[in-house]
């Protein structure tokens, strides 16, 4: 029995992570409910006038998606670190930067993807113009993948820390900001009848860059963290 090829191994990891997610349906439903509730907080906090709300809908939805991602990113490698699986992963002969992509992929499938798909419901609740729904979903699809990759870097650097705590939010929130800007700009553009394409293209370019570089940073981060 020889070690499986990297691609096959990644697929196995992906299935494992998805299986783990399915074992905690709460965990999957939760970002959605969190999304719903935080969206509900805004009218409570900012005042419920429909006109003003609609103006801020794109920002509110994007900020909420970002926070929801922030909340779940910390857990990407945490449980594997705590039960010793991460050690085993680091010792595996397959290249680590591919393996981590499987983790991030599973994270995105169980948070970002779902969030993007249900976001139109909340957009309607906030009176976002229907013309912008397409841009919203598209920007969230690309944007949450980016957020997951960035969050993975933060998670990999902090997973081994005894004294880490919420450190991850400090590390990754500044890096999240460009994503937020372009994401909400895309929706805002669609609301005002302008093309959202350029913004989505920029998000896409950033995603390509992140897919190429983030796994390397994550692999390095994990190797360091296991030795903290």
């Amino acid at each position, binding site marked *: 029995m020889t070690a499986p090829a990297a691609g096959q191994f990644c697929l196995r990891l992906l299935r494992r992570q998805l299986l783990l997610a399915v074992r905690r349906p709460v965990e999957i439903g939760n970002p959605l409910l969190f999304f719903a509730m935080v969206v509900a907080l805004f009218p409570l906090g900012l005042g419920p006038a429909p006109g003003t709300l609609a103006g801020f809908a794109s920002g509110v939805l994007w900020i909420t998606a970002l926070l929801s991602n922030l909340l779940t990113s910390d857990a990407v490698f945490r449980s594997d670190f705590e039960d010793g699986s991460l050690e085993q992963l680091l010792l595996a002969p397959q290249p680590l930067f591919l393996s981590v992509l499987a983790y991030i992929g599973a994270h995105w499938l169980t948070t970002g993807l779902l969030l993007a798909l249900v976001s139109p419901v909340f957009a309607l609740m906030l009176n976002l113009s229907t013309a912008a729904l397409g841009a919203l979903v598209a920007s969230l699809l690309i944007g949450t993948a980016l957020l997951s990759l960035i969050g993975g*870097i933060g998670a990999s*650097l*902090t997973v081994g*820390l*005894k*004294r*880490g705590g919420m*450190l991850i939010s*400090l*590390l990754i*929130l*500044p*890096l999240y*900001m*460009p994503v937020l*800007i*372009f994401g909400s*700009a895309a929706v*805002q553009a669609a609301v005002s009848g302008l093309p959202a394409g350029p913004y989505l293209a920029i998000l896409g370019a*950033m995603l390509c*860059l992140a897919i190429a*570089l983030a796994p390397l*940073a994550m692999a*390095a*981060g994990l190797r*360091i*963290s296991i*030795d*903290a």
Partner: protein
Amino acid sequence: MWPIFHKLGSPPWLYAIAGSILRWLLPITLLALVTGAVWGLLFTQPERIQGNSYRIIYIHVPAAVVALAGYYVMALAGAVSLIWRMKMADVAMKAAAPVGAAFTFIALFTGAIWGKPTWGTWWVWDARITSMLILFFLYLGVVALYEAFDNKEAASKACAVLSLVGMVNIPIIYKSVDWWYALHQGATIKFTGESSIDSSMMYPLLLMIGAFYALFTCCLLLNMRVEILQRESRTQWVKKLATKAGRP
């Protein structure tokens, strides 16, 4: 090339060389700072619109310029430490982070003080200001990450990774924030006042910028010397140094 690298990797040599650089750089820095400050604060005209309050420019702008440059110094040191596994690059990176954070804070603080009389408010969500704030967070992230690790060697590597990630992101952040500002441009204030800068104000400003660069270098070297002593505290040469210094 290699011999220099090798020497740079040697703590006693670096400690000594940093000491001898400081010996002449520190006086020069202080001199330039004092001259620049006196020239700028006492011997320039009050500005037409802002009166005297503009004089804070002699601290604000140099601090902002150096804060940004400091990040690249830190990230570069991080890259060297990752690629060539040079321990002294770790030291440089670790030493640069708090200094850079301090300069960023000075820029933010003086900017806020300046904003009150000129804009009537302490803070505006302007592109430049916002990106400066993000830079401050990036610095703090590096400092906090270093503190959170127990194994300081691992801490340096982790910070190196983080500062490299940050370096890739800084242009993106700046670009995006600029864009964002341009998008929402409304009643907000533009503050690139280059046109209003008179050459009589310009020269002391340039001097101050130079002085701040030197100040940054001094702080960096001082910090590095402390860090080297801490890391090497068990070695023979540090013990010898300590006993020599302790002798009456």
